[in-house]
Every structure is written in structure tokens, then in C-alpha cells.
């Protein structure tokens, strides 16, 4: 496929995606916006009446809000992973999807960032969590995992946005040079007068490398921090050392799946076949198998150590996970996250776009349930039997969840139609390498 690509064809393919959209597009946008309004409505209602309109209770103080938070932060991960780590490893298949992945990251972080607010009992007091003293010079508690979150997530948002924007600069210039009128003016500004002269490239390449080098540990740290929201507690099923790597792997797992979920339709709609080749999708698929195996390994380890520990609380906690009230959720999680991805070992499956798409959806579902099983399943059944309880999400929570999904896709849909959803410059680089190998 790559041979047919030229600088021009790349530019044209990408620029064609920026043509004025048809009505159907705006309908979609409108629908998504309606979804957002629904979510916003539910949230307002919750603020007015009280957090009790959700399903949380004692002992399950945390419900879908935290589940969705972790879910979206997870999604947010593979963006930077693909972009940064694979950039360091110089894996060629990264370039076609890097831009979309980074975009996904930025929007996913925004979506995730909403949930801690939605989750709060007194969201109007949220500024207590900002690092500013109150009138009696009392500051937030930096020993709290939630403060780690505040620091980590905001850092992550800043860094990934900057990374994303910096990466876009050359492409913005390209669009500027191919456009007229208002769009020209806008892109003239946002491309910061990029001229691709060597003096700029010299520093740019270097800076971008450091970006990647810094983003990589950041990705890992951020989801480790998220995992420590749970692991630093004492609750059986939460308090376990494997959580940090396990969550990171899980995050990448879900993120890659989401990349496929986004890329496959994009590829068809925008005729990206030449750029986002099946080879690229395959590589993503293979990585999913890998991450799937890691989370599988983690599931197994948890169960094994719980059994090995002979600590009655641990043992019961994990027995109940697999065979208790949430057994269904548990097995959905295991199946979708570790068993189903194994299908991708077969080239036939990998290369069949439809199946690939379905599997990517299943993994997303599985990862959502993983968070459910961990967050709800552990506290519902912890130390004192008399305090055991169950939890089921309420309609309000579902409303907000729908709103969140709509918000994410809303932003993404707006982006792909107005910004280069594939990095032209990096594609050209890939092309260059391709030639040099050929020659």
C-alpha cells in the first residue's frame, strides 16, 4: 500500500476530510449534544436533590462515577502511549494513528476529569482540593491519594494537550498554506507562523523527543496513581501491590481497543485505507493481545495470592468475586479482557475489519466491568460481614454516563472534521523511511 502514497496524495487525503460537512454530520453532532444536555440535566438534578439520587450506599460509597472516571482515564492512556513510547521505539505503524490517539487522549482526560466533580457530595466546595489555603491557612492533604490524582491528572492533561498541539504545528501550517479566507486566517494564527525552515526543525525534533521521553513515565505514573486510589486503602481486593502495573496495562488495553473503535469507522468514512493500512490495525490488535495477557496474568496472580495468603478475609473476598452476587460481571470481565482478545492471534480474525471492530467494542465493555468488579466488588464484601451490601446504578447515573460518552464523541467528531485527524508530516516521514529501505 505505502508505495502508492506520495507527499501529495497524503496531503490531499487528509485535506479532503476538511471539506464542508453534509447535513448527516450535523445531525450526528446535534444528537451527541442532546446526549450531553441529558447528562448535564441529571447532574443538575443530583446537585439540587443530593448525591443520594445515585445508587451508592453504605458500604458501596463509590459507584459508576468513579468507575467511569477510571474507565476514561484508562482510555486516555494509550493515546500518549502510542505516540510517545512507540515514537521512542521507532515503531513505524504508530504514525498513521498517533494523531487520532492523542486527540482521543486529550478528550478522554477531559471527560474523565468531570467525574470526580460529579462524584462529590458537595461539588460546590471542590476548591478545597486546590492547592490554596483556606482562610485559616489549612491546605489540602497531600498524603491523600485523591490529591495525587489532582496533581497527576492535571499534569497529564497539560502535558498531553501540549504534546498534541506541538505535534500538530507542521500540519496546521500545511492547512494554512492550502486554505483561504477565514480558515487561512485562523490557521495562520494557530500554526504560530510555522515555516518548516531548518532552524525550527532542529529544535522541534529535539523538543518533541523530550516530550515523548517525559510523557512515557508520566503515562505510567498517572495510572499508577489512579490505581493507588484503591491500593493505598486497606480494603481486601484493593490493597494489593500489583495494582499499579496491572492498572497501567489495563489502561493501555482499553485505550488500544478504543483506538480501534475510533479508527475503523474513521478509516472507512475518510477513505484512509491507504494511510491506516490493515498492517497498522493488525499491529494494534497484536498489542491488544499482549496487554490482554498481562491483565489476565494479573487476575490470576490476585486469585492465587489471595488463596496462598490463607487470610480468611482475602480468600472470601476473591471467592465472592468469582462466585458471589457479581459473578456475572466478573466473568464478563475475564472473558472480554483476556479470552476474546486471544482470537486476535489468528490472522484471519485480525485482518477482518468487522470482527476486529466487534472485538474492540467487547474489550471496552470488559474493561468497564473490570472497574466495576474492582470498585464495587471489593467494598461490598469487605471485613465485617454485618456491613456487607450490594449496589446497583440508578437512572440518574446512567443518564450522566450517557452524557459523558456523548461529550467524548461530540468533541472527537468536531475535531476530525476541522483538524487534521492524521499527521501528514509524520506520514511523510514514514514514507521517507519506506523509500530509504526500498532503495
Amino acid at each position, binding site marked *: 500500500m505505502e508505495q502508492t502514497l506520495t507527499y501529495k496524495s497524503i496531503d490531499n487525503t487528509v485535506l479532503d476530510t476538511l471539506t464542508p460537512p453534509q447535513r448527516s454530520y450535523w445531525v450526528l453532532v446535534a444528537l451527541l449534544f442532546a446526549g450531553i444536555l441529558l447528562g448535564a440535566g441529571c447532574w443538575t438534578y443530583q446537585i439540587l436533590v443530593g448525591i443520594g439520587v445515585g445508587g451508592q450506599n453504605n458500604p458501596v460509597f463509590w459507584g459508576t462515577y468513579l468507575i467511569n472516571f477510571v474507565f476514561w482515564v484508562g482510555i486516555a492512556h494509550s493515546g500518549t502511549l502510542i505516540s510517545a513510547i512507540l515514537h521512542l521505539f521507532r515503531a513505524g505503524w504508530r504514525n498513521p494513528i498517533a494523531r487520532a490517539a492523542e486527540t482521543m487522549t486529550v478528550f478522554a482526560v477531559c471527560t474523565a476529569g468531570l467525574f470526580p466533580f460529579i462524584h462529590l457530595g458537595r461539588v460546590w466546595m471542590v476548591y478545597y482540593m486546590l492547592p490554596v489555603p483556606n482562610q485559616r491557612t489549612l491546605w489540602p492533604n497531600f498524603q491523600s491519594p485523591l490529591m495525587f490524582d489532582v496533581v497527576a491528572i492535571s*499534569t497529564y492533561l497539560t502535558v498531553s494537550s501540549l504534546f498534541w498541539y506541538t505535534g500538530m504545528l507542521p500540519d496546521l501550517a500545511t492547512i494554512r498554506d492550502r486554505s483561504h479566507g477565514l480558515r487561512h486566517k485562523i490557521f495562520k494564527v494557530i500554526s*504560530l507562523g510555522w515555516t*518548516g525552515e531548518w532552524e525550527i526543525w532542529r529544535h522541534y525534533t529535539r523538543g518533541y523527543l523530550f516530550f515523548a521521553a517525559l510523557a512515557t513515565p508520566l503515562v505510567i505514573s498517572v495510572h499508577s496513581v489512579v490505581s493507588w486510589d484503591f491500593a493505598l486503602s486497606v480494603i481486601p481486593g484493593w490493597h494489593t501491590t500489583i495494582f499499579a502495573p496491572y492498572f497501567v496495562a489495563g489502561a493501555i488495553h482499553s485505550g488500544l481497543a478504543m483506538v480501534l473503535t475510533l479508527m475503523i469507522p474513521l478509516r472507512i468514512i475518510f477513505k484512509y485505507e491507504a494511510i491506516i493500512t490493515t498492517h497498522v490495525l493488525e499491529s494494534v490488535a497484536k498489542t491488544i493481545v499482549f496487554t490482554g495477557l498481562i491483565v489476565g496474568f494479573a487476575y490470576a496472580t490476585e486469585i492465587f495470592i489471595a488463596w496462598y495468603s490463607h487470610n480468611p478475609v482475602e480468600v472470601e473476598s476473591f471467592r465472592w468475586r468469582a462466585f458471589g452476587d457479581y459473578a456475572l460481571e466478573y466473568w464478563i470481565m475475564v472473558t472480554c479482557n483476556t479470552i476474546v482478545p486471544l482470537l486476535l492471534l489468528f490472522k484471519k480474525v485480525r485482518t477482518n475489519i468487522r470482527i476486529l471492530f466487534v472485538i474492540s467494542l467487547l474489550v471496552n465493555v470488559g474493561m468497564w466491568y473490570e472497574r466495576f468488579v474492582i470498585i464495587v466488588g471489593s467494598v461490598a464484601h469487605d471485613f465485617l460481614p454485618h456491613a456487607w451490601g450490594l449496589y446497583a446504578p440508578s437512572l440518574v447515573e446512567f443518564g450522566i454516563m450517557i452524557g459523558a460518552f456523548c461529550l467524548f464523541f461530540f468533541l472527537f467528531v468536531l475535531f476530525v472534521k476541522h483538524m487534521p485527524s492524521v499527521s501528514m508530516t509524520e506520514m511523510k516521514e514514514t514514507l*521517507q523511511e519506506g523509500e530509504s529501505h526500498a532503495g
Partner: protein
Amino acid sequence: MPADTVSIMGIFSSEQRAALAIDGLRETPWIIEQVYSPIPSHAIEHALEPPKSRVGWFTLAGGIIGFFTGFFLAAFTSLRWSLIVGGKPVVALVPFFIVGFEFTILFAVLGNVLGLISQARLPRFETPAHYDERFSGDRFGVLACCSEDEQDELTRFFETNGAEIKTNDV
């Protein structure tokens, strides 16, 4: 530069050609004023052998500052009231390390951006006259200057290297 010099822009359709031209020019007394490229080309880099960028120092500085900022922020704030939580020491190094780490990354990145825009002198508000819009697409430009009398020679040099010529008269 002296008043009697002219800048001539050779526009190349391929990276290699541009690179060769650059190599060629560096043998001659003509000065390469500027090189334009849609991609960070290795070939051109080899040809130009530009000095190493100093962006990294900004990044490093940012990182170091960040680490201590984060760490001391955490320590300072907890010492305002010295409240004991969970029986842990008021200044708890182990968890504060996380704060320190995140700040390291944050400040390092900010330093990096600062370095980038200061070194590359971005943003720029007007594009140079000799800039060709294709430079952001599929063309490579080499701008060299010579004294007026050598103008034809340089032009010929470019053409032999398969470039199209773009001159902007001063």
C-alpha cells in the same frame, strides 16, 4: 550581507536532491541562508550537520525545579497545621515522592515548551517573502545568497541539481 548580494531559492521536489544540492553548496563560497522542508529529513540533517539544539537544558532545569517545588509544596502545606492523619508522620516522604514526581514531569514539559519556543523563536507573525507555500507540502527549498555577478552561476548550479528557481529581488 553586502548590498550587492542576491538570495536565490532553489525548490526541490525530493529530499535527496535537496540534500545533494546542500552538500554541493557547502563546497562553494555561497552561503546557505535557509533550508525549508516539510519533514525533519535525516538526509538534510546529515548534509547540513547543524549544531545540537540546546532545548534539553531547559527541560532538565524545569525537571529539577519541578521536583523540589512539588516536594516542598507538600511538606510545607502539611506543616501549616501538622495534623496527624492515619498515624502517618506529618511530613511523609514516601507519598510525597509522588507529588514530587508529577511536578517534575510538569515543570520539565513546561521548560521544554519554553525552550522550544525561545530557541525556535516561535510564534512568528509574518512569513518571509521568499517562503513558498509548497514547503509545507511536498517541496524542499534551499535559499542561498551570492554576489550579483555570481547569480547566474548559482542559478545554474541549482538547475543542474534539478531545482526550480525562485528569486526575490531586493
